[in-house]
């Protein structure tokens, strides 16, 4: 990655970070439009840098742009929407977009498993808890973010640190023979992604599979024990003053 491409990428990330900062709930002064414009500008800038910086992979670029747009916009709404129900529904959109990207990456089994497990099971549990625990309307703690500037700064630094290593990834790796279509070590030719991944999980990672099953059993026992636990209701609890960011009186922007 040349220096100019890297600086363009960092500029785009900073723009997106500013957009997320304005999109985060700020109490009674919502500046969603500013954040949306900045975020969309950052998204378009990111695609321009990808296209002209030589960062795009081969094939399916149109589909990549489409699903990456859906995934990033929906993820931004998950973390910034003031109402938790909408956050959960936008997360379904993130899952579906990521599953489509996995299909483009020749991971068909994982794409379907992602939709079944996330959109089918985990999200239903989240929505159930949200419905159980919502008091109608958005609460004060949903309408004001906690230290949004510092959080966006941390996220920006992390993203820049990861993306600066994207050019250290080699063009291609030939550390072992190709196993995507067929696995000769298992003796059976796997002609589909599902069959190949099943062979790998059932032979090389069979111990990990057992440990995963054990972990699920422990989690189930723990969840049942938690839900049966009797808790004292702390009456007279008063929420403290809504907490804002450092120097709420002084506008950082």
């Amino acid at each position, binding site marked *: 990655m040349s220096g100019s491409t890297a600086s363009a990428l960092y500029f785009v990330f900073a723009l997106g970070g500013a957009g997320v900062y304005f999109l985060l709930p700020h109490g009674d002064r919502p500046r969603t439009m500013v954040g949306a414009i900045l975020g969309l500008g950052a998204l378009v800038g990111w695609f321009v840098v990808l296209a002209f910086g030589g960062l795009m992979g081969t094939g399916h670029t149109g589909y990549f742009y489409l699903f990456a747009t859906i995934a990033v916009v929906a993820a931004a709404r998950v973390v910034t929407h003031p109402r938790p129900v909408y956050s959960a529904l936008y997360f379904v959109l993130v899952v579906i977009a990521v599953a489509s990207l996995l299909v483009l990456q020749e991971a068909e089994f*994982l794409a379907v498993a992602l939709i079944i*497990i996330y959109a089918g099971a985990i999200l239903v549990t989240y929505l159930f808890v949200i419905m159980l625990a919502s008091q109608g309307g958005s609460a004060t703690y949903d309408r004001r973010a906690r230290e949004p500037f510092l959080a966006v700064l941390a*996220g920006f630094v992390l993203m820049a640190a990861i993306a600066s290593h994207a050019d250290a990834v080699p063009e291609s790796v030939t550390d072992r023979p190709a196993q995507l279509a067929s696995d000769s070590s298992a003796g059976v030719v796997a002609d589909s992604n599902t069959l190949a991944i099943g062979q790998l999980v059932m032979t090389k990672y069979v111990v990990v599979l057992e440990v995963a099953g054990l972990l699920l059993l422990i989690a189930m026992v723990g969840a049942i024990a938690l839900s049966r636990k009797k808790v004292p209701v702390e009456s007279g609890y008063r929420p403290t003053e809504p907490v804002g960011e450092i120097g709420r009186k002084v506008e950082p922007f």
Partner: protein
Amino acid sequence: MSPVADYLILGSILFALGLVGFLSRRNLIVMFLSTEVMFQGVVVNAVAFARLHHHLEGQAFALFLLVIAAVEAGLALGMIVLLYRRRGTLDAEAWSIMRG
């Protein structure tokens, strides 16, 4: 340039967005939804590396990530319901002072 650099950058964007949400939101449920967004970024990265290396171990890793996500969601939501029954709020700040 690597053929999967675009997917790696997309994964880092999803991970960073989830991190921002986890750090800045005060609703316990939205905080854990943000960790799920971070999981999505990791899944994108793992599958991209699987395609780069031409073998399936990244995809197997992503499959076990799904197990961890399910375990985390079950336990975390059980604990959130417990905390909500205790104080009647989902605000994380309500638990800023922990007593035994």
